[in-house]
């Protein structure tokens, strides 16, 4: 027996030489991190406890940042292509040569036809800067990746209530008693939702998960609703039916804070049918039920009617609430009528609606916080309905996603649970109604800047980006009759349209941080063909491609010129209030990244490269009057640029004394002030301004003081959406601006001013007997889609992506462990490994997104499982719908916003023999790796052991 022998341990070893605070970029969540440095190397990354987003916690991706920062796939220097596109053969060049090549392409374009540059920036967190650059260049062709991500949620929210989820707002985690989560949500807002779920679990508050797949958050939901994909809108509208018929809607809230009392023109023959009745000042009218006459909606002491038919100046009209009630009280929305389609029993739909009503109205919360509303009325208390919701891509990525997002926001509003204690809360700079957003701009003048910001929110057909012949002015056909409210653009259509020369040919495709030749495109094989296709002269159909990435991605191989970006620990950035800030419901906040370690390669932060390129092109705003460069680098821009006088990219520490909040002169020491403050700036909203923000004058005045707006802008929620009705009127033949004939019916049907549900497009066009199953993807919580690299630690958690198959399909096909299947859609087929998952909608299969890689990419070895067994579902999804036989190209997108309808996919499955080499199909030919391959073994930290 060896006796107990306890060695002396040093339990207080030195942890690091220095801690530097910056912002994570391992996904879109933007958590604060403490980076511990030891002998100049990154030793440990932990969450920053003071940071508003993550409050000290950090997810697996964040902790794996070390492996990202030191990844073997990092690009090392600018490169120009020397082989054919797609081969991955490059030669490293100097930055001077890279800029010479780029200006050689771009300068002539700008002088003659700026629209021949298409500049799309993917997972860009500097859109207020990149869009400003694109404006200065003068091209109308700019957007980031929202069009293939979650624009339905964003636009649906803004058009309904002036904000949506995630960056726009969040559940009141401190007070909510019932939380309902729709669809996959593990990707955006990752740590805040986990922190929030933890709070709910601690209090024993109930969580209902609505998702065909019971993984992640749904695994801990108290109640799981395994809904049929694409039917969430119908489920929600059926619950609204139940709430209405039983009188469980917050009528007082609807009268005070929404346009439900507004009178709507009911004269079928009128050119303004379905629009609001207005007085001579243009103010919307309500019917005062005491005075029995029409008055302005915001008149003092108004008592609006919520039902009845009236005549105003001879025009028949009714409150919009009546239109809503008539619509959803109809039998088509009874739980019995929808149960089969949504895959939820009528009793269960009724039960969940009853639970929402019970908690919203039976467990109301009262905070003793006086506040004053926009009508000057003082309220002694803040009364809350403690029911809250969240949704993101799950309901967005369908062709009915915009109206489904509208339906969900309408449900929240019917319950009176938006911007109240326990409900949903906006994060500044939201609430922000459509009227506070720009309209789209697209006027091109050679050699001059564009006439304004590219992206915006159309108010009617007059705001579409069409030329006098009705032709699309943008290469992605955003803001056209095909998708009028495409507020984030359509990055997923750029390559397809550019290749087709429809609406016109372009010269240079310039992209950043978007893997468009791989997992970020539908029809991946087709896109690779488009990128490599040559015309009759042997020239590429898309003549020039410039791409910026930090890593050797699949897209690098298809580009002609590479600007190598830094890692996120080597760069300056600002997470700006001008853009997509990190605010919380109780605080305004923004943050920076800064080089906590210096690059050891010849790389530059993309934004710095863009500033230098802008100066070489002589773009206005990028050069001084004497022709010298205006900004040294991106850090200089962040500090010195003013978007409006006194308002710049960073809101904190402004002015000469560094005390300005939101407003103030540029402060040359601003970045150092952020560094000293932990990498972020925060300003807490006063308590009396904390809820009811759209109508709370304390909040409105605070927002003006801090520079979020220049004037107070209280507003009411647009449950009834007049802009949609304007498009619908055009489709009915009214007005001067008319849709093309073939789109009339689509516009009429999809632009309903009240939320609707319709069947996802693909299943209306394919044989549902032949393609009986739904197919979905999810992103793993521990690994974001490929905008980084295939991380050495994270790939040990998610290096494989079988197709998960529910019991019914598994047994029907006689599958066994280790089997393979051929999975086909109307568009294509893949051969992939399958695995059984029981906790899954019985007619749905799914896999992890973007685990499959091309051989040669990301510095992986050729036999890495990501390149052998790994696969993409993208091969089965086309950017166009199956032909309707009418000669038109119909996008596989939401007809309102153009959002890519990834989750409409229908498939069939057949068992196949296991491939002897265990190789999935299609097996794309390898690309060469310009950075070699990763090392065999890694022992990180050995130098310190």
């Amino acid at each position, binding site marked *: *027996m060896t006796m107990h022998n306890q060695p002396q341990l040093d339990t207080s070893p030195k942890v690091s030489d220095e801690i530097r605070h910056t912002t994570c970029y391992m996904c879109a969540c933007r958590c604060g991190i403490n980076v511990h440095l030891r002998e100049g190397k990154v030793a440990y990354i932990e969450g920053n406890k003071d940071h508003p987003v*993550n409050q000290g916690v950090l997810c697996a991706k964040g902790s794996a940042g070390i492996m990202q920062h030191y990844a073997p796939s990092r690009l090392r220097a600018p490169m120009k292509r020397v082989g054919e596109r797609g081969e991955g053969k490059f030669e490293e060049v100097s930055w001077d040569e890279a800029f010479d090549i780029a200006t050689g392409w771009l300068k002539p374009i700008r002088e003659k036809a700026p629209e021949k540059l298409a500049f799309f920036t993917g997972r860009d967190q500097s859109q207020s800067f990149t869009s400003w650059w694109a404006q200065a260049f003068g091209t109308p062709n700019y957007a980031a990746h929202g069009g293939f991500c979650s624009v339905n949620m964003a636009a649906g929210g803004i058009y309904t209530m002036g904000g949506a989820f995630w960056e726009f707002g969040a559940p009141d985690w401190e007070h909510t008693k019932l939380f309902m989560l729709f669809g996959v949500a593990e990707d955006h807002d990752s740590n805040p939702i986990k922190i929030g779920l933890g709070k709910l679990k601690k209090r024993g508050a109930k969580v209902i998960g609505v998702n065909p797949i019971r993984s992640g958050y749904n695994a801990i*939901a108290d109640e799981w609703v395994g809904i049929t994909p694409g039917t969430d809108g119908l489920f929600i509208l059926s619950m609204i039916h139940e709430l209405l018929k039983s009188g469980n809607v917050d009528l007082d809230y609807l009268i005070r804070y929404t346009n439900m009392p507004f009178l709507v023109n009911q004269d079928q023959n009128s050119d303004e049918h379905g629009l609001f009745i207005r007085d001579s000042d243009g103010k919307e009218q309500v019917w005062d039920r005491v005075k029995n006459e029409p008055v302005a909606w915001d008149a003092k002491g108004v008592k609006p009617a919520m039902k009845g038919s009236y005549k105003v100046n001879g025009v028949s009209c009714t409150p919009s609430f009546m239109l809503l009630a008539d619509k959803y009280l109809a039998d088509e929305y009874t739980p019995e009528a929808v149960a089969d389609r949504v895959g939820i029993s009528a009793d269960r739909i009724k039960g969940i609606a009853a*639970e929402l009503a019970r908690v919203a109205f039976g467990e109301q919360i009262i905070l003793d916080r006086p506040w004053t509303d926009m009508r000057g009325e003082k309220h002694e208390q803040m009364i809350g309905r403690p029911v809250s919701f969240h949704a993101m891509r799950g309901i967005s990525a369908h062709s009915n996603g915009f109206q489904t997002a509208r339906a969900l926001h309408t449900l929240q509003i019917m319950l009176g649970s938006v911007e109240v204690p326990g409900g949903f809360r906006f994060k500044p700079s939201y609430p922000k109604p459509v009227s506070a957003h720009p309209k789209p701009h697209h006027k091109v003048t050679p050699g001059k800047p564009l006439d304004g910001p590219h992206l915006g929110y159309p108010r009617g057909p007059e705001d579409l980006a069409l030329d006098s012949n009705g032709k699309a002015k943008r290469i992605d056909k955003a803001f056209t009759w095909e998708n009028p409210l495409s507020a984030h653009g359509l990055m997923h259509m750029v390559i397809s349209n550019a290749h087709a020369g429809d609406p016109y040919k372009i010269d240079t495709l310039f992209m950043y941080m978007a893997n468009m030749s791989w997992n970020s495109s539908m029809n991946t094989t087709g896109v690779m063909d488009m990128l490599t296709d040559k015309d009759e002269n042997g020239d590429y159909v898309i003549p020039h491609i410039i791409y910026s990435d930090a890593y050797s991605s699949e897209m690098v191989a298809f580009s002609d010129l590479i600007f190598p970006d830094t890692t996120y620990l080597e760069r300056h950035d600002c997470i700006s209030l001008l853009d997509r800030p990190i605010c919380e419901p109780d605080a305004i906040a923004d943050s920076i990244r800064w080089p906590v370690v210096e690059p050891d390669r010849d790389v530059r932060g993309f934004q710095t490269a863009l500033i230098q390129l802008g100066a070489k092109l002589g773009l206005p705003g990028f050069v001084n009057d004497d022709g010298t460069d205006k900004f040294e680098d991106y850090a200089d821009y962040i500090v010195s640029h003013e978007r409006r006088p006194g308002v710049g990219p960073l809101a904190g520490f402004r002015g000469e004394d560094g005390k300005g909040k939101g407003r103030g002169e540029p402060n040359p020491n601003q970045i150092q002030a952020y560094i000293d403050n932990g990498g972020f700036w925060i300003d807490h909203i006063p308590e009396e301004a904390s809820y009811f923000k759209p109508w709370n004058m304390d909040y409105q005045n605070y927002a003006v003081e801090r520079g979020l707006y220049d004037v107070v802008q209280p507003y009411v929620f647009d449950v009834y959406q007049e802009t949609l009705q304007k498009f619908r009127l055009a489709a009915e033949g009214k007005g001067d601006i008319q849709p093309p004939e073939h789109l009339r019916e689509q516009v009429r049907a999809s632009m309903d001013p009240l939320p609707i549900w319709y069947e996802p497009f693909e299943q209306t066009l394919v044989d549902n007997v032949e393609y009986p199953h739904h197919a979905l993807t999810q992103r793993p919580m521990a690994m974001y889609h490929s905008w980084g690299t295939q991380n050495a630690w994270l790939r040990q958690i998610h290096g494989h992506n079988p197709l998960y198959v529910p019991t019914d399909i598994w047994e029907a096909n006689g599958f066994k462990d280790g089997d393979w299947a051929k999975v086909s859609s109307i568009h294509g087929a893949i051969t992939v490994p399958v695995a059984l998952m029981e*906790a899954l909608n019985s007619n749905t299969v799914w896999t992890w997104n973007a685990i499959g890689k091309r051989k040669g990419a990301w510095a992986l070895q050729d036999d890495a499982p990501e390149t052998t067994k790994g696969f993409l579902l993208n091969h089965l999804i086309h950017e166009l719908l199956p032909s309707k036989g009418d000669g038109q190209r119909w996008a596989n997108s939401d007809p309102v916003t153009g959002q890519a309808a990834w989750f409409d996919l229908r498939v069939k499955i057949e068992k196949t023999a296991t491939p002897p080499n265990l190789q999935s199909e299609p097996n794309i030919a390898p690309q060469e790796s310009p950075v070699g391959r990763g090392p065999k073994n890694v022992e990180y930290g050995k130098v310190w052991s």
Partner: protein
Amino acid sequence: MTTLPQSTEKKLGLVIDLDTCVGCHACVISCKEWNTSNYGAPLSDMDAYGAEPVGTFLNRVHTFEVKQENKPAQVTHFPKSCLHCEDAPCVTVCPTGASYKRVEDGIVLVNESDCIGCGLCAWSCPYGAREMDAAEGVMKKCTLCVDRIYNENIPEEDRVPSCVRTCPAGARHFGDFADPESNVSILTAERGGMELMPEQGTKPVNRYLPPRPKTDIEQIDILAPLLTRQPEETGGFLGWLDRTLEKL
């Protein structure tokens, strides 16, 4: 063979809440990140970018599906690391005395300079909580971040294991089970904290809080009756509307 101490002053360990764990693997990677650079040899990753990457991890999350009669299957995320057993067979089996249990806090550790990499301890652990590092040839296991929890170079509030500090959902708790008033003892008492495989007789210190019962069945809670239609005799929906407006 190595002896265990008669008793320990404290019984430090973890409470892991299976009702709250979303399976995000934050704890897995934070543990890897801390421990590859701190106590003992690094946690290597063999074939890191190749066909079969195999690294050393001191904490892993396993995901199980639980099939149920007449109910949809459930999914449980189950994080697993060393449970710092009172009767730790991995200690008593050690031929060199490298494995030991600390007298002051009960943490089970490996003194790597005495470890010959024979692997007997891993064989004896019923939980599979020890991993042999393939590059260094020494046995690795959870140290409860012994180099964090007393570390005076770390702010006091952060003197907890790396996995506990990082857990986004707050599903991991660290404390002294010998103290009935500690956070972990109270949680264990309140939520019915369970030992893992008590029949193995190793007296594990860590506890798991079981998932709360789910309600996803087709029947409706009798205390929450379905919503009833506004009665026709009082005007149905429009009657409700009038009455409600009058009250406003």
